[in-house]
C-alpha cells in the first residue's frame, strides 16, 4: 500500500452484528473492506475501533479521510425494541385515539392470539385541545393559548422529554400547529417540540402524526449518538464532516439527521440498493433484482433503470409515510432454523437463531441446525469460515445438529443439509415471485445481483429456480451497504398535499406549489454546506382518476408546468402501465412532490481495484455434496481471480466477507470490475 495522503473515502454500515467498513483510495481506485464487531451500547465505538484497525493494518490515518458517510440501525432498533424516549402528544379534541385506532388493520391473519397493538404514546400522554380547522382551512374552533400551555404542562408533569403536535388538516393549513409550537416554546424554551406539518405535511392524520411521534421517540438517543460520534471521530483525528444515510437512499449532514432522525429508519436496506445500483451503473446493467441475504433477514428490491421508491413503507407494525427505497423483506436468512413438524415434514424458518446463539457451527451455544450449518456440512463454506479466519466454523457441530433431524428423516447429515437448502430456496422463491408480480415485472428481463453475508452463497441455487439469465456477485458483497453509503448523493424529499381535481387546479397554483417546494428543497441543500458536482430536482405528483383509489406517481418531464400537461403525462403513464387510459375521465392530483439531489463527487472507477492484494494462494479442491452426490468443487480465492477468468461450477469462491457457491450448471466469468457474472447453462 502506498503512503497515505488525504484522498480516502470511507463508507460505514453499522449492522446488528458487524460494522462494515469500505475504504476507497480515490487515486488508485483500490478498495479495502473491513468488518468489526458492532457495539450495541455505543455504536460509535465500533467505528473508532475500525479506524484504528485501518491505521494499524493499512497505514491509513483518520486525517487522510476526505469523505465519511455512515448508516446506523440505532433508530430502527430503538423503535422496534420500544426503547425510546417518552413523547407527549397534543391533538385535536375528539381525536385523542389517533394512535390507538391506527388504520385498524392487524398485521397477522388467521391468528386469534395476534398480540394486541400498543401505541407508541400511551393514552395518558395524549392531550386534546379545543381547536378545529375544516379541510379548507376555515377556523371552526379557534386555538386557545391557555389550553395549549395547560396541555404542555400536564405532559411535562407526566415526564415527557418531547412533545409532538398534530392537528387535523395541518398538512395544508399549519397555522394552529405553528401557533401551538410557538406558545409552548415561549413557555418552556428547553422542551423539544415538533409539529406534524413541519416534518412531513402529507394528508392522512395517523401516518403523519406517527412520523412526528417517532421523530421524538428516537430523537434524543440519535442526537446523543451523533454528538458522541463527532467528538470521538475528531479525537481520533478525523477532520472531515460526517454524513448519515437516509431511507431515501441519500445522505444528509449530522445536523439535519439530528433534527429529522425519522428519515434514517430504513437507511440500512436503502444503502444496499444504492450500492447495487452503483455496481449496475459501472457495468452498464440497469435492470436488476437485488437479493440481500444476511444472518437474520433476506431483502429484495427491483432496480428498473431507476432506484425504486415507495411511500408505503413499514417498520415493524408502523407505517412510515416518508419516501424510502422500495425494499421488501422476504425471509429469515442464514440463521433460519430447520425443524420437523409433527408429520415429520421438513421446515426452514421463520424462526432464526439470530446472532445469539447463532448457527451451531458458530460455537456460540447454538444446537439447532440452521441454513448456515447446511452450508458448512456440505463443504460449501470452509472450516476457516470468513473474515480471514476470524470467524471459524465448527463443521462437527453443524453435522451433529443436522444429525438430530437427519435421524428422524432417515437421511445422512449431508442429505439433510441438501434438503434444508432446497426448502430454504423454495421459501425465498415463494416470497420473491409475488413481489415481482407486485411490481409488474418479468424476471426474464432482469439480472439477479446478490450481496450480504449469505447472498452470494445462496444466490445461484435461487437463480436456477428463477431461470435467471444472469447472476451478478459484486466484488465486496458483504459490504455493499457500506459501498452504498460511500457513493450516495445528498437527497431530500418534500411534499405538499393538494387533493384537487384538475378542474380545481390552475397553472398558476401548480407553478406556485412547485416553486414553494423547490425553494424549500434548495434551502435544504444549501444548509448541508457541501460542495456538489451537480444539482437536480425530480418533480412528480401522485395522481389518480377521480373516484378511484389507485394512485400513480408521475414524474414530470422537463417541460413548463401546466394542468393540461399534467393530465397528459398521467394518461400516458397510465396507458404505459395498464395498456389503456380513459382520457375523458377527470383526474385528481393528490400529492405534489419534489426530490432534490446534490450529486457528490464520485471516485473514478476506471482504475477500480477491489482487492488490496492479489494473493498467489493456489487453487485447491474440496469435496462438496450436491443433490445427494459428492462432487469435487474447485476452491478459489476471490482476490486471485483476474478479469477475464472463466470457470464452471461446482466451485467455491472464498473471500474476506463471504463465500460464493457456484453449483454445477453455471458458467462464471470475472468482468473488468471484478464482478462474478454467472450464466445458467441450458
Amino acid at each position, binding site marked *: 500500500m502506498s503512503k497515505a495522503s488525504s484522498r480516502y473515502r470511507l463508507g460505514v454500515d453499522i449492522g446488528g452484528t458487524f460494522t462494515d467498513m469500505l475504504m476507497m483510495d480515490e487515486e488508485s481506485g483500490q478498495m479495502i473492506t473491513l468488518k468489526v464487531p458492532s457495539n450495541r451500547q455505543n455504536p460509535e465505538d465500533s467505528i473508532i475501533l475500525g479506524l484504528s484497525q485501518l491505521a494499524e493494518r493499512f497505514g491509513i490515518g483518520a486525517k487522510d479521510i476526505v469523505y465519511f458517510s455512515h448508516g446506523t440501525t440505532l433508530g430502527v432498533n430503538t423503535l422496534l425494541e420500544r426503547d425510546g424516549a417518552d413523547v407527549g402528544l397534543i391533538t385535536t379534541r375528539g381525536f*385523542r385515539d389517533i394512535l390507538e385506532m391506527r388504520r385498524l388493520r392487524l398485521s397477522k391473519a388467521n391468528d386469534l392470539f395476534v398480540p394486541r397493538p400498543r401505541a407508541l404514546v400511551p393514552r395518558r400522554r395524549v392531550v386534546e385541545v379545543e381547536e378545529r380547522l375544516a379541510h379548507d382551512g376555515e377556523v371552526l374552533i379557534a386555538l386557545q393559548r391557555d389550553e395549549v400551555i395547560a396541555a404542555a404542562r400536564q405532559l411535562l408533569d407526566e415526564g415527557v422529554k418531547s412533545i409532538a403536535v398534530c392537528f387535523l388538516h395541518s398538512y395544508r393549513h399549519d397555522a394552529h400547529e405553528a401557533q401551538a409550537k410557538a406558545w409552548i416554546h415561549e413557555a418552556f424554551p428547553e422542551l423539544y417540540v415538533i409539529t406534524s406539518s413541519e416534518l412531513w405535511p402529507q*394528508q392522512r392524520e395517523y401516518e403523519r402524526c406517527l412520523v412526528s411521534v417517532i421523530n421524538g421517540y428516537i430523537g434524543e438517543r440519535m442526537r446523543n449518538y451523533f454528538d458522541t460520534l463527532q467528538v470521538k471521530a475528531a479525537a481520533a483525528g478525523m477532520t472531515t464532516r460526517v454524513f448519515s444515510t437516509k431511507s431515501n437512499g441519500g445522505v444528509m449532514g449530522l445536523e439535519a439527521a439530528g433534527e429529522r432522525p425519522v428519515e434514517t429508519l430504513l437507511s440500512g436496506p436503502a444503502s444496499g440498493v444504492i450500492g447495487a445500483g452503483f455496481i449496475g451503473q459501472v457495468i452498464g446493467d440497469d435492470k436488476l433484482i437485488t437479493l440481500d441475504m444476511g444472518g437474520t433477514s433476506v431483502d429484495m428490491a427491483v432496480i428498473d433503470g431507476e432506484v425504486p421508491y415507495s411511500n408505503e413503507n413499514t417498520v415493524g407494525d408502523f407505517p412510515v409515510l416518508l419516501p424510502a427505497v422500495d425494499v421488501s423483506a422476504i425471509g429469515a436468512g442464514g440463521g433460519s432454523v430447520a425443524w420437523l413438524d409433527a408429520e415429520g415434514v421438513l421446515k426452514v424458518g421463520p424462526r432464526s437463531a439470530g446472532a445469539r446463539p447463532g448457527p451451531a457451527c458458530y460455537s456460540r451455544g447454538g444446537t439447532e441446525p440452521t441454513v448456515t450449518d447446511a452450508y458448512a456440512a456440505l463443504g460449501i463454506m470452509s472450516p476457516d469460515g470468513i473474515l480471514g479466519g476470524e470467524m471459524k466454523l465448527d463443521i462437527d457441530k453443524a453435522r451433529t445438529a443436522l444429525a438430530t433431524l437427519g435421524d428422524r428423516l432417515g437421511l445422512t447429515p449431508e442429505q439433510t443439509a441438501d434438503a434444508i437448502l432446497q426448502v430454504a430456496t423454495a421459501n425465498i*422463491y415463494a416470497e420473491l*415471485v409475488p413481489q415481482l408480480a407486485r411490481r409488474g415485472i418479468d424476471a426474464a428481463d432482469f439480472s439477479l445481483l446478490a450481496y450480504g453475508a449469505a447472498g452470494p452463497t445462496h444466490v445461484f441455487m435461487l437463480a436456477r*429456480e428463477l431461470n435467471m439469465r444472469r447472476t451478478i456477485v459484486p466484488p465486496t458483497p458483504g459490504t455493499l451497504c457500506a459501498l452504498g453509503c460511500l457513493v450516495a448523493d445528498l437527497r431530500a424529499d418534500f411534499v405538499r398535499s393538494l*387533493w384537487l381535481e384538475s378542474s380545481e387546479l390552475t397553472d398558476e397554483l401548480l407553478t406556485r406549489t412547485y416553486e414553494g417546494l423547490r425553494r424549500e428543497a434548495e434551502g435544504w441543500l444549501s444548509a448541508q454546506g457541501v460542495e456538489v458536482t451537480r444539482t437536480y430536482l425530480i418533480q412528480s405528483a401522485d395522481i389518480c382518476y377521480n373516484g378511484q*383509489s389507485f394512485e400513480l406517481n408521475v414524474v414530470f418531464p422537463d417541460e413548463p408546468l401546466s394542468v393540461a400537461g399534467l393530465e397528459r403525462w398521467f394518461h400516458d403513464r397510465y396507458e404505459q402501465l395498464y395498456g389503456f387510459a380513459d382520457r375523458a375521465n377527470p383526474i385528481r392530483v393528490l400529492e405534489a412532490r419534489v426530490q432534490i439531489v446534490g450529486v457528490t463527487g464520485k471516485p473514478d472507477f476506471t482504475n477500480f481495484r477491489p482487492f488490496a492484494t492479489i494473493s498467489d494462494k493456489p487453487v485447491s479442491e474440496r469435496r462438496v455434496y450436491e443433490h445427494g452426490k459428492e462432487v469435487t468443487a474447485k476452491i478459489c480465492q476471490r482476490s486471485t481471480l483476474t478479469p477475464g477468468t472463466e470457470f464452471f461450477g461446482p466451485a467455491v469462491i472464498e473471500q474476506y466477507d463471504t463465500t460464493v457457491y457456484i453449483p454445477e450448471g453455471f458458467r462464471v466469468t470475472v468482468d473488468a470490475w471484478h464482478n462474478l457474472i454467472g450464466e445458467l447453462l441450458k
Partner: protein
Amino acid sequence: MMDDKIGLEILGNRFQAIVDEMAQALFRTAHTVFIKETQDYGAVLVSPKGEVFAASRRYGVLMMVGMPMDDAIRAMREDIREGDIFMTNDPEATGGMCTHLNDVYLWKPIFHEGRLLCFAWTFVHMSDVGGRVSGSIAPSSTELMQEGIRIPPQKLFREGVLDEMFLKTFLVNTRTGDQNWGDMKACIAALSTAERRVGDLIGRFGVETVSNGIDKVLDYAETQARRVIATVPEGTYRFSDFIEADMVGQGMLRVNLALTVKGGEFHMDFSGTAPQVRAALNLPSFSKDGHWMLITGVVNWLCTREPSIAYNAGLVRPMKVHIPKGTLINPEAGAAYGARYSTSHKVCDVIIGALAKAVPDQLPATDSGQGSILLVALPDMETGATKVSVIQPIVGGSGGRPVDDGVDGTMVILNFLKNVPTELLEREMPEILIRHYGLREDSGGAGRYRGGTGSIIEFQTFAPYTTITSRNMERYIFPPAGRQGGTPGTTGYTLLNPGSKGEKDIGKIDILEMDVGDILRIGTQGGGGYGDPLSRPAQAVIEDVLDGYVSPRTAEALYGVVAAADGSLDAAATEALRAGKRASRDPLKEFDFGPVRDAYHARWPDAMHDAISEATQDLPRLQRQMYYRALYDRIDRMIDAGESVIAADVPALLAALRSAPRRAAG
C-alpha cells in the same frame, strides 16, 4: 429427491407462490375501491375434484380454503377445453360456492398435453351487479331476484375466444359495467399468470410430481388438521346465539349448534337453527361440509394452534356439517343472501363458543360481532346526482384472550379491515364533519384479560337529505359474552343528536335520513372479558385506569382495585376489597352472557326453542317461516299474561294456530 417429507414442503411453497402471484397480479390491475380498500377478492388453485389446494394467506379474502367448487365444476363437466374461462355468481347453481351475487367468480382449466391438471380460480366483489338498490345489497331485500343479475356457470371464453354477446348482456345489467369489466380483466390476467406458472412447475419437476403433489398437499393438511382436532376431548358441546333481526322485523334468530368431536373430526349439527327469513340474512351453505362461511372460527383456531399448518382444503375435510334444509344457514332456493356476513359471523361465534367448552384456554371470549360499513350518500343540490362514500367501518373490540387482552377497536376475525383517514373523508365529503373518532372507554368486559374496547364515531352533516346506510349491525341487545369468569362486554348504541333536547336512541340502522346540522353518534361493542377479573394484576388495572381504558368505578366494582388519590395503586385497600369480593361472590361462570340475555334464557329456555324448531321443521317453506314467528309471538303473549307454557305445549299451540283463520295468525 422429491422424497415426500421434503418434496411436500417444496411443492407446497411453489403452489403458494403461484396463488400469491395471482393475487398480486389481480390486485395490481383491478381498480375498484372494494379491491383496494377492503381486499374483497381471492385467488386459489383447485384440484380437478374441486378442492382448493393452494390459497393465499396474505392477500385478499383469506378464508377461501373451504370454498366448495365441486358443483361449479360438475356443472361444466362435459365440456371443459383448453383456453376456456368460466364465470358465475349464482349461489344456487354452484351449491353454495357463491354466497351472494356481488361475488363474481372466473376460473380456467389448466391442461398439460391434453390432460386436465387443475383449475386456476379467482373472484372479485363487484360494486354493483344490478338489482333493486345501488350496490345490489340491502338487508331488507326479500328474495334473490331483487339482488341483481344471476349468471349460472357458463363460458366467458371458449377456447380462447371471448363471448362478447354474453359479456355485453351481463355488463348492461349492472350499474358499474366498465368497472366490472376492468375487474374481470384483472381476474383474467391472474388466471393467465397461474397457467404459465403451473407450466413452469411441470417443466421443473415433471407432470407426475406436480399432479401427485396436489393430492399430497391436500392429504398433508388433512393429517395435520386431524392431529390437532384429536387433541380436543371427545364429546358433544352445545352452544347457541342469536342474530338480532328485529331491524327487519324478524325478532331474534337462533343459531344452534351441537358440536361433536370424535375420531379427529368435528361434526357440526345445526338443527334447531331458525328458518330462513324474508330478508337478506340467509347464508346459502347448502350444508356443504367445511363450507368457508361456516368454519371461519375453526380454521382460525387451527392456524392459531399451528401457525405453519398447510393452508388448503385438506384442513376442512374433517369438518362435517349437518344443517336442516330451509334454515337460515341452508335456505331453500330463492332467498335473499346479500347481507349474509352477519349470519356467517354469528356462526363463527357459535362454533368458538362450543369449542371453548371443550378447550377453554385455546379460544378468546366473544368479540363485538359487528362488521359493518357505514356509508353516506349526499345529493348534489345543483345536479341532483348522488355522491357516495364510506365514512368508516364500524367494528367493535375483540374478546379477551387466554394469553392477552382483546384488541381494542377492531376484531381479530376481521383483521383485514382498514379505516379511512378523517382528513381524506372531510376532503371528499366537505358536508360531513367528524367530531369524534376513537375508543369507547370502559366498554371492554372485565377479566384477567380485558375485552378490547369498542369505538365511537360521531359526525355531523351540513347537507339536506343525507342518507346513512349500514348493514351487518349486531349486538345491540345481547352483549358479547365473557368467559371463564370474565364479564360481558357492552352492547352497541346509536344516538341521534346526543346531548341535545331532541336526543334519540335509534338502535341499529338500515337506512337513516339526516337533516342539516344533525349529529349521529355510534358506539360499538366492547369484547367480553376472559378469566377472573380479581386475578388481573392490580397494577395492570391501575395502568388501564391511567390510560382511560377502564374507569376508576369499574376498577373498583369489577376488578376490586382501588386507586390512591394520586392515581397510584392503594395496595392495602385493594387487597381488602378483593378479599371481600372473593368471599361473597357467586361461582365464576364459564360463560357470562349478561343480565338481558339471562332473562331472555329464563323466558325462552333451550327446550322451548328446540320444540318450536322441531314442530315447524317439516312445514312447507312459507308456512314454516310464518308459524315459527307466530309461535314466538303467541307464547310471548301468554307469558306476558302470566300463563304457564312449557315446551311440550308447542305442538298443540301450533295446531291451534294452523286451524285459526289466517287473519289471527301472529
